[in-house]
């Protein structure tokens, strides 16, 4: 019998698996593109037939509404896309702060689950079980209700030094901007470079000779001294804009509204419980032999966790941690229920003023898509750096 010759790898015939795969992928792409085009076309045609106006031209028109809080001043005469930008900064403000705080808190609690003290272990366990199992919207509402019911009205605010706490939020003194602060910023940059350079040198020396040097404290001190030097050279300004009690509200100073505080606290505590479990799983994945070897080398529990367990656990921790960061960012959209003007709230207002439902919703989806993709890109880069390089 004549032996059957298998087809060559790049043969353009149906018997080649690579060729078949290529054809299937092309067909799938065409089908998906066709479905997407059909949906968009159908929507546009239907909207035109019913007389519903569409298009993104409304973005350059004046917004006509004020925004309750923002990082920089926003006037109602500015255009809609600038209002959207304020919404995006508000979302990022709560998302970035929330991620940082939740990571710190979650790591502490996750590590606390391994404590030798039974009380600490029990507290961490109950924290995780409590905050993990209640829906996040209820937690946000609970914090908002607590903040607005328990705190006094602004004219009877609790004063702690220069800080005021009331239903109007947390008022704090902010430094009056003058040249001194600018020079402090100028001093910060070379300070950062110097501190980083010193740290590199100290780490290299330790790895080469075993001589321990201060690798965190001294660089931080260098950075601090450099900014203080810049501040002093700039005239050493000490002017602060202090909050004072007005007729109905606290005036002057900076303020964190109860909406922002409730969103931040709710999201941080909720996500920290998930991060605690992720960290716990990561640490548990490291072989117990490592912990025993560390204590055999004379490291105490703190050093063992910090220098041996956590760095090895990072490989397992980072992908689910990315998930939790994305969840936190997307959960911030619930802030619209308690009056925080994030991008969803601004889009809702714009949607109702202009009637462009499809356009506004797609803008919000785009914002979240870009933010989430950016976060996961960053985390993936960090993951590849933290990965153990196998020999």
């Amino acid at each position, binding site marked *: 019998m004549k032996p059957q010759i298998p087809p060559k790898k790049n043969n353009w015939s149906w018997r080649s698996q690579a060729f078949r795969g290529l054809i299937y992928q092309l067909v799938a792409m065409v089908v998906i593109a066709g479905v997407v085009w059909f949906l968009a076309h159908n929507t546009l045609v239907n909207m035109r037939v019913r007389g519903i106006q569409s298009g993104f031209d409304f973005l350059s028109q004046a917004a006509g509404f004020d925004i309750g809080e923002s990082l920089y001043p926003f006037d109602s005469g500015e255009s809609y896309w600038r209002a959207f930008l304020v919404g995006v900064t508000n979302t990022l403000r709560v998302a970035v702060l929330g991620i940082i705080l939740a990571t710190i808190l979650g790591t502490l609690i996750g590590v606390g689950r391994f404590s030798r003290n039974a009380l600490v272990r029990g507290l961490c366990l109950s924290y995780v079980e409590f905050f993990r199992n209640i829906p996040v919207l209820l937690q946000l509402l609970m914090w908002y209700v607590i903040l*607005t019911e328990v705190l006094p009205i602004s004219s009877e605010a609790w004063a702690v030094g220069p800080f005021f706490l009331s239903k109007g939020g947390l008022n704090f003194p902010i430094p009056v901007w003058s040249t001194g602060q600018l020079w402090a910023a100028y001093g910060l940059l070379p300070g950062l470079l110097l501190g980083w350079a010193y740290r590199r040198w100290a780490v290299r020396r330790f790895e080469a000779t075993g001589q321990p040097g201060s690798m965190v404290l001294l660089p931080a001190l260098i950075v601090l001294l450099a900014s203080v030097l810049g501040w002093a050279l700039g005239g050493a300004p000490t002017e602060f804009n202090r909050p004072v009690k007005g007729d109905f509200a606290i005036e002057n100073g900076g303020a964190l509204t109860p909406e922002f505080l409730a969103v931040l606290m709710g999201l941080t505590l909720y996500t920290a419980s998930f991060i605690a479990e992720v960290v716990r799983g990561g640490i548990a994945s490291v072989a117990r032999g490592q912990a025993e070897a560390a204590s055999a080398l004379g490291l105490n529990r703190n050093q063992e966790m910090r220098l041996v367990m956590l760095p090895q656990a990072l490989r397992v921790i980072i992908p689910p941690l990315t998930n939790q960061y994305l969840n936190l960012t997307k959960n911030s959209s619930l802030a619209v229920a308690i009056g925080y003007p994030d991008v969803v709230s601004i889009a809702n*207002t714009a949607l109702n003023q202009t009637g462009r439902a499809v356009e506004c919703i797609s803008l919000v989806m785009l914002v979240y898509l870009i933010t989430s993709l950016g976060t996961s890109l960053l985390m993936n880069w960090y993951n590849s750096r933290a990965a153990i390089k196998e020999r």
Partner: protein
Amino acid sequence: MRISNLKNVAIVAAVLGTLAAMPAHAGKTLDGIKARGQVVCGVNTGLAGFGAADSNGKWTGLDVDICRAVAASTLGDAEKVKYVPLNAQQRFTALQSGEVDILSRNTTFTLTRDASLGLNATVTTYYDGQGFMVPVKSKIKSAKQLKGQTVCVQSGTTTEKNLTDYSKANGLNIKPVVFEKLEAAENAYFTGRCIAYTTDASGLASTRNKVAKVPADHIILPELISKEPLGPMVRRGDDEWFAIVKWTIYGLIEAEEYGITQANVDKLKTESKDPVATRILGTSEDTGKLLGLSKDWMANAIKATGNYGEIFERNVGPKSALGLPRGVNNQWNKGGLMYAYPVR
């Protein structure tokens, strides 16, 4: 005759036949309502006096009564209504997509809503204005004292824009706290998060009487900062349904003008010789046929809900829980703005 010629004739005949079989000019909405046997009405989720359900699930309110009157004039039975509660974000999309036939949800008629959403504003059923409510404790007597203050407002309404316009015009720098849900906005005001709450004056009265623990602790400031003509909206492209809704409301207003009430409508239908009354009730002329409805279209509506004055008294009038005066919502010949086009 050649085959192709015969084929052409057959095709033309078939097309003409289908065209002839189609009804002359039936509106899609009216057909859908007749097929379904009920009017689908978009109402408020819970605004006392305008559209709210009680604990038994029975809907009452001025907007609800308009829907019942439209159902009575179209289908002959005011109970053949399905109520769909809608919040401020969903209301226009629900009407545009066909989920509801009529949006009777204290909606302000503005140019944007009439022109760019594919919707039509019918007849104003309540002339309102936007106001502020503050606690008596705050000692604020005028809206101009709200400089730099926080004001609670519901998202998705004309309220936000009016607040900004007023704030800018008077240099007040008001900080709005915007909530998605009506209940959340009201709650934030009553716990003291904001110093003031703003919405239409009728909504303020409704909130103060129904939600406040002690209504007397809150006052509604005298300034009305905007015009808010409220009324039902329908989709564009269906002029028949638009005419039915519009003329049902005008019929209710004209019935009050000429003294036809829920109590005397049956008597007047059989005994009255007044030319206007007989035209409205269908005994002398059949105006219903011109709209595609039965002869008793207006008689059914008035029997079900009463005339406009009775609807007003029952839901928002001085003797009701809201206690609002007739004011500009009175008949044109009594100093108000309600001016019905002649039903004839």
